[in-house]
């Protein structure tokens, strides 16, 4: 028997009170942990997914939509831009490098992205199996795509029109899997990569039924090399070719000032800054996060109050215990600590259960709502902030117990014992 066990015994002697307080504290902590895991990871994902991209240029429309579509691959495109205009833009002095994106098709709910190798390189993607795409109609799969659809190297599939599962199949022209990528935790894991020409090929093949297409293969007389799409010779009749968007890296910070204004003012295209739009998005979510966080702090405050009241009342009933223990040789400090420990026991348990519950909640949401698991937010990581939360939790227990514990110093042992 020591004071740690003693304080635990006192809590056990009032199981319902103790349970209520632990549950209250657990709830408060769990909500904070969920928000912490969610917002920290979301912030990381936002930053991770927008790094290396200074500007996205797409068709006129909502800049947030352009970012959501071209960076996070969750919204639909605002439309297409002419390759010709994109080519013009690359001649601008402020543009250091560009990456084309051609969207519109999907397979099994995962987007097929016609792009250049620079796109996965931007995210430092590495091959897990096979190779990168080289020829038309070859695809390299992101990690989740390969795992979820179970496609192996050499497998062939038809793309579906549209970005959702229910689009009609293109048929006839098949994509062929040549490789898959390692897990990155970024949006890359959910994409199917190919070159822009493949996306065009699928769509042109469809259009051939309607219009007579006269494409003169190998005619290089008036051809010029594309500055946007690698290994592409542009012919005059290619002037109507389209891509969805263009990811741009500035040559200097001056680009951030001049280029968006130039694009929005002088072209039919719309420029959107990933950093700015992501921050805007996060601040919108942030309001919700703050409201729920405030709610969690209220719960924790109520838990603290409840611990305080429970301890205060129970110490009133225990004044004989205190006096008797003093007569048995207990010092005031020892009894003071034992009361403080009662508060700390509750908040320690609450913090541990709350942290566990928070992580399980995130994992539970991932299981129940599969799309959230694709965002890469997981309950299996622990943040430094959670340690701080634990310390803060113990501090709350300490504060709740201090005033009741001070009664120990006020106890008039002789007076209490003389009464019977």
């Amino acid at each position, binding site marked *: *028997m*020591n*004071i740690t066990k*003693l304080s635990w*015994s*006192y809590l*056990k*002697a009032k199981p319902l009170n103790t349970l209520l307080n632990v549950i209250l504290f657990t709830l408060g902590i769990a909500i904070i942990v969920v928000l912490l895991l969610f917002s920290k990871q979301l912030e990381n994902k936002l930053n991770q997914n927008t790094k290396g991209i200074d500007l996205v240029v797409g068709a006129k429309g909502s800049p947030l939509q352009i970012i959501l579509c071209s960076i996070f691959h969750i919204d639909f495109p605002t439309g297409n831009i002419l390759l010709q205009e994109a080519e013009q833009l690359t001649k601008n002095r402020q543009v250091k490098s560009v990456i084309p994106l051609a969207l519109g098709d999907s397979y099994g709910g995962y987007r097929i992205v016609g792009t250049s190798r620079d796109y996965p390189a931007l995210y430092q993607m590495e091959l897990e199996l096979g190779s990168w795409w080289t020829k038309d109609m070859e695809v390299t799969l992101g990690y989740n795509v390969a795992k979820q659809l179970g496609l192996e190297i050499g497998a062939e599939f038809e793309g579906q029109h549209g970005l959702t599962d229910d689009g009609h199949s293109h048929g006839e022209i098949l994509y062929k899997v040549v490789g898959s990528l390692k897990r990155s935790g970024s949006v890359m894991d959910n994409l199917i990569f190919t070159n822009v020409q493949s996306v065009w090929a699928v769509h042109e093949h469809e259009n051939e039924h309607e219009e007579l297409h006269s494409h003169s293969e190998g005619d290089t007389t008036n051809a010029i090399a594309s500055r946007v799409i690698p290994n592409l010779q542009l012919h005059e009749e290619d002037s109507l070719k389209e891509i969805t968007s263009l990811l741009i890296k500035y040559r200097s910070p001056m680009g951030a000032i001049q280029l968006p204004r130039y694009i929005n003012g002088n072209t039919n295209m719309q420029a959107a800054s990933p950093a700015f739009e992501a921050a805007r998005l996060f601040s919108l979510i942030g309001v919700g996060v703050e409201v729920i966080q405030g709610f969690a702090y209220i719960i924790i405050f109520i838990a603290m109050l409840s611990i305080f009241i429970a301890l205060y009342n129970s110490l009133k009933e225990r004044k*004989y*215990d205190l006096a*008797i*223990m*003093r*007569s*048995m*040789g*207990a*010092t*005031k*400090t*020892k009894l003071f600590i034992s009361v403080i420990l009662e508060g700390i026991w509750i908040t320690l348990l609450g913090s541990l259960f709350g942290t566990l519950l928070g992580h399980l909640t995130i994992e539970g949401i991932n299981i129940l709502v599969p799309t959230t698991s694709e965002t890469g937010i997981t309950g299996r990581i622990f943040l430094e902030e959670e340690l701080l939360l634990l310390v803060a939790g113990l501090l709350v227990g300490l504060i709740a117990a201090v005033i009741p514990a001070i009664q120990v110093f006020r106890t008039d*042992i*002789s007076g209490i*014992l*003389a009464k*019977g």
Partner: protein
Amino acid sequence: MISIKDLIYQYNSETRISFPDWQLDTRGQALILGKSGCGKTTLLHLLGGLLQPSSGSVFIDDQDLTKLTGSELDHFRGQHIGFVFQKPHLIKALNVQENLFLAQHLAGIPKDKERVLEVLKTLDLLEKRKSKVYELSEGQAQRASIARAVLNKPALILADEPTSSLDDENCARVIEILLDQAKSQGAALVIATHDQRLKNQVQSSLNL
């Protein structure tokens, strides 16, 4: 063992009690008798260091209690003095043997289960060692509180009206156990009481 001299306790500006000088030998047994309100409990608390006198001195085992500071006094009390009160006042959150383990811990004595079981056995409480406090009868609870008082082999046992709420049968039993335990543990015993039933049991007495 006990020696008090010029002992005065001041309750407030109007009320003060002065106690006669008094000695008790090691292993001595004595009653403190008197009407209620005459300071029996106060003297007992002064002897046990629960109260500090306004003036005078209290020697227990050659130690002047008035010279000890707060926590020194707590330690001295834990190791040298055992208390028995009118009501058992066991810690209800603990079972019987845990109450005794707590007594060892608070006195700064290492946990000694054998000693606990030995004391429980002599007080016929061995079967009740894991019982909750509220499951005990009045007599059993008072015996448990005596077990707690003698557990650490104190030099002095102070009992405050230990029998006044008990019937004749229990009273006889409790006083017999107290005298018996004090003798076998080698402790001096002082009982503050107005219970006339005890007068025949203990020869020496201090009348206030």
